[in-house]
């Protein structure tokens, strides 16, 4: 019997980039949840919701707290409502699926995860969870094939709950064109006078690289590689680009996710990023450790070295 590893999406950096600061009560509630003080966390988040009943962050957090408390019924209600109100967000679908899977309702879990991925094709946590759900459904199908009673082979699934509501991905830096990136219009708050946040910029580039790859935008993707990029096999840049273009063109669809990224700065213009890369196409699925060495040239972060494993 396979065991399913619990996974947490490590997305704190992305969160800091993409979202306005959480309201104080919600932040406090999140800390309390992290500390295992579920009851207090719930009180705090309910207080926040009294003031702003529709606030997605607070509702999401409440869903998490209820899930931790084992109150699946109410947690399902909250996450379901979030999927209706914010169908573009992948996380509520993911967490719905996690709860369904924990109840052994794998068909429902599968539907929610597929929806999560339709919403957000590069959402790695949902892919990994979906992989586990497919494996579980496969196991049930085999049980039927072999007439084995699967009701008591339980070891219910433990999938990864998404801890944070990230919202939309960080905007893609328009690296392929020479135009300067336009600031993302934000209605809900004034655009922050962005302080030079180097690790954040690096991550933005990594996300942009993954996005371009996922869109099969070979030009955009290759623009993330610096002129001095060391090709992995030592081949010429042209030969390498040709191979990459062919690889990107071959599958019908590609989805690349960046998970648990860690940025180490080496001076102001050089950084090493390690993360788990989930790659999925219609022909292949893989998960691997990836290291990118990046340098900043003319204000753009680009890849000079790429290592797998």
């Amino acid at each position, binding site marked *: 019997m396979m065991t399913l590893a619990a996974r947490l999406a490590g997305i704190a950096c992305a969160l800091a980039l993409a979202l306005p600061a959480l309201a104080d009560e919600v932040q406090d509630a999140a800390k309390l949840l992290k500390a295992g003080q579920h009851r207090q966390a719930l009180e705090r988040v309910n207080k926040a919701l009294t003031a702003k009943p529709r606030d997605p962050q607070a509702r999401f957090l409440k869903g998490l707290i209820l899930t931790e408390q084992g109150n699946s019924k109410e947690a399902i209600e909250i996450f379901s409502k979030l999927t209706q109100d914010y169908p573009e967000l992948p996380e509520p679908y993911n967490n719905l699926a996690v709860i369904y899977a924990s109840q052994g309702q794998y068909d429902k879990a599968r539907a929610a995860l597929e929806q999560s991925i339709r919403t957000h094709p590069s959402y790695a946590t949902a892919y990994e969870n979906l992989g586990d759900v497919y494996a579980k459904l496969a196991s049930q199908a*085999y*049980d*039927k094939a072999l007439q084995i009673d699967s009701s008591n082979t339980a070891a219910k699934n433990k999938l990864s709950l998404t801890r944070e509501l990230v919202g939309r991905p960080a905007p893609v830096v328009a690296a392929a064109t020479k135009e300067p990136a336009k600031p993302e219009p934000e209605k809900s708050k004034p655009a922050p006078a962005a302080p030079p946040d180097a690790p954040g910029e690096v991550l933005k580039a990594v996300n942009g690289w993954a996005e371009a790859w996922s869109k099969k935008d070979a030009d955009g993707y290759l623009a993330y590689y610096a002129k001095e990029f060391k090709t992995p096999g030592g081949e010429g840049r042209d030969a390498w680009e040709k191979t990459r273009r062919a690889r990107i063109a071959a599958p019908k669809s590609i989805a690349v996710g960046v998970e648990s990224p860690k940025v180490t700065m080496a001076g102001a213009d050089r950084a090493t990023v390690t993360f788990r890369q989930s790659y999925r196409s219609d022909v292949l699925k893989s998960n691997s450790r990836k290291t990118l060495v990046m340098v900043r040239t003319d204000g753009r972060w680009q890849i000079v070295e790429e290592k797998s494993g």
Partner: protein
Amino acid sequence: MRRLAFLLMLAASSAFAAPTPEDKLSRVFESIEGNRLDEAMTRVDALIREYPNFRLAHLVRGDLLLARSRPLQTFGNVEKTVPPEKVDGLRNEALARLRALRQRPAEDRLPRYVLQLHAEQKHVLVVDSRRSRLYVFANTQGRPKLIADYYVTLGKNGMDKARQGDQKTPVGVYHVTANLPRKKLTDFYGAGAFPIKYPNEWDRRQGRNGHGIWLHGVPRDVYSRPPRASDGCIVLSNPDLESVGQHVQVGLTPVIIADEIEWSEAAAVETERSALAGALEQWRADWQSRDTDRYLAHYSSRFSSPGQDLKAWGAHKRKVNGAKQWIKVGVSRVAMFRYPREGDFVVVTFDQDYKSSGLSNVMRKRQYWVKEGAAWKIIYEGAG
């Protein structure tokens, strides 16, 4: 799709228009072959909705789901610890079903065994054990024409039944002896049963025993069984048994069971048929002539009849023929089947209308003919 390559080897293109569950399974594999895995999933889901007990379909569905999670190592990638023969049974069923659909007998080929059907035998059933397949042929002016074929389960210990309880399926020429409807049977036999005449005369002469070889259906909780799973019976899915049952005439329908059907050109079958028909006619004419030496020349030195060897048989015939002023022998409703596994060995049955000065009778007769040198000779003769 490299990780599903081993499934592609099974992929079949069905020649049949009528969408049987087997055809639908085959289309699932076609989708896999075309790398349309979502379509394959839709198709297998539909098949399972229609036939929830089709275990093989569940196995394929399991693979399609697992392939979304990780690369498969094998067809039927079951990871639990289960007795390997359980999974192997389903794998073998898939192979048998898909091979049979893909490798169709050529239009101009006929099973070498069916030399002649008589007018009342509307159909003949021929089983190919290696393919786990039962072929139904219609009688068109004495010649067989393939009209349908079905996946079958045979004895778990293989073929050539010899002993009671050996869990093997006999090889030979039989016929259906009864029709047992569902209500007279336990659920194990499913939609019904058609016992066949094992052991026949030849089996008894070979010292083979045992009994209760039937064509029958399957229990409610399964759609079909693996290729080698019965105690010697020929098992079909319930819908298939019902279709075959529509063609069965109790006491008449031949059931020929072979290791692997020999498919011959129609012309070659006809050559052999006419040689046998000629030998039979000569035997009839020579008997009628009352020239006992010419008559006895049709019999092999190895001949025997119940209770008589060739010497006793010859002495008896000489005595009887010598006492007659005239003999008239009529032969009608002739059926001739080559016997699987026995080489040049043909079972001939016919209505014998014997009239003479003194005695007349009509009987169904059975003869076994073997080829000795260039000539066909009788090695057994008895009531059929």
